[in-house]
């Protein structure tokens, strides 16, 4: 392993409030970390494939994925990512308000790396984001992207 740039998170999220809360939460963290936000599955694929306005995007180390989004929803994107030879090794954390058992089951079925229900209040949300960051970007050893 070489010492390199700070880790990069891609959040696929259509709620701007949630996206803002993620940024705020990361701001409070000790770890440096970059975050990119796209609003749905279609944009996420453009981002990952460095197409359109995302020509100069960098590959993420981690993906935070909401389930219910316009155009291409989280399940569809998850299925495509996990079937993709290159993208399937990027950990995908489903981060959603849904506590529906079908949603949880289908996410794991599609090889989500974990499923987290968004806490309601900002403090808990913030803690959750930092816990994700600590675990996936510090404790876990990820493969080279």
């Amino acid at each position, binding site marked *: 392993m070489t010492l390199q740039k700070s880790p990069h998170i891609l959040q696929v999220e259509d*709620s701007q409030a949630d996206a803002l*809360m993620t940024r705020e939460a990361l701001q409070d963290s000790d770890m440096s970390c970059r975050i990119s936000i796209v609003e749905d599955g279609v944009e996420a694929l453009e981002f990952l494939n460095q197409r359109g306005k995302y020509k100069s995007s960098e590959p993420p180390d981690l993906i935070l994925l909401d389930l219910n989004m316009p155009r291409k929803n989280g399940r569809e994107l998850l299925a495509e990512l996990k079937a993709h030879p290159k993208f399937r090794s990027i950990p995908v954390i489903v981060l959603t308000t849904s506590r529906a058992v079908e949603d949880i089951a289908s996410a794991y079925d599609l090889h989500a790396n974990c499923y987290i229900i968004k806490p309601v*209040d900002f403090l808990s949300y913030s803690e959750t984001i930092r816990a994700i960051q600590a675990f996936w970007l510090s404790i876990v050893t990820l493969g080279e992207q």
Partner: protein
Amino acid sequence: MENEKAQSLFADEKFLRLLEAAPDAMILVDHSGAIVLVNSQTESLFSYKRHELIGSKVELLVPERFRKNHPVHRVGYMETAGVRPMGMGLNLFGLRADGSEFPVEISLSPIDTEEGRFIIAAVRDVAARRQAEEMFRGLLESAPDAMVIVDRLGKIRLVNSQTEAVFGYSREELIGERLEKLVPERYGEIHPKHRTSYFEEPRVRRMGGGLELFARRKDGSEFPVEISLSPLETEDGILVNAAIRDVSEMRRTEAIARMAEELKRSNAELEQFAYVASHDLQEPLRAVAGSVQMLQLRYEDKLDERANEFITHAVEGATRMQSLLNDLLTYSRVGTRGQTFAPTDFNKVVKAVTDDLAVAVRENNAVIRAAELPTLPADEVQMIQLFQNLIANAIKFKGDNAPQIQVGAEDCGRHWQFSIEDNGIGIDVQYADRVFVIFQRLHTRKEYPGTGIGLAICKRIVDRHNGKIWFESNENKGTTFFFTLPKSEQV
């Protein structure tokens, strides 16, 4: 002697050849009933040799039970002689040499000579035809449908007993009548036209080409039918068999199926609504709560006490709304996401619940005792949910003493009655109906937190299991919740 003379009278070669050429057994009898001549078909049909027959009385070929009356008829015919079938409408039988009988048709004709009148009887074995007829009749009667056979003129020729049952007419009231007797009056004009055109090109097909058909009973009432038509080739020309099926029951079943489908659709919509509640409604709530909280955190030092209080209320409101939405989702899923019923051991259910509530039990020094409980068909997950809600309530609404909770069950014949007894604060019985209503609370949130969903879910679960739920309570002494579950799924 006389017989020989008679024989010589008919010794003409041409006449004898003619006799042999006939398909039937031909028997020539003189005025005394003695057989004068037979053809070889007679020999094979009755298993007699020709010489055994000649000179014998024709009654030799008549079964014993008809023998006594036969000469009278014979003499009678001698007097009125004309060509005609014998025994008009009766079933006639022949008697073989070996004593066996067989059904016959006999046609009689007189031959007058200078020696007097002779009778020639053409006898035909109709066993095969009778059998075919019987098979046809059997077939007709065994058909599940009303079978009505009609001729070209629309006259009913034959019906089966199902026709009588379905239409309420007796056979006699139908045979020979116009088929339109069974057709609603409003089709009275068009029906004969369709009937006529069917006879132009008769083939097996369904009647009405996809239209809803109706038939008319004797009492004038109508009922929906399906009719299949098939031509029958008979000696009298083409007849048509109409197989008529009463589809009232089927139509009713279809209507019920449509309603069930509709219900399923509206349930799915409700489920969709619940999902919307769980996600789409929560998103904006999160935005409110999150933003306000961020405001509080980032600008704490710039805000005064009142501003902080506003923020607290906003966050609390949003949080509470979210738990209401989640509870609503749970509530709606009792009906839509239930599992099929399987034998469920309630000892295990209560054990699972007690384990789940271990922390609350310890913190409150609660004691849970359970009697021996039965195994019943139920949705195990929901049973756990049910006991969990009831036992958790018993702990939550504890009185001054540590909670003592007793779980029991009583065999009541067709169902079991469960009870969960506590020594808690009790429930004022005037709220008996309200406690099971969704989001109905009897206490302020400060006294006891919660949305008021627990008992509503309990009721929905028990309802789904075709049981009843109620309670008895003494304020400050405790409450006993009862619910029943049937022993078998069919109630």
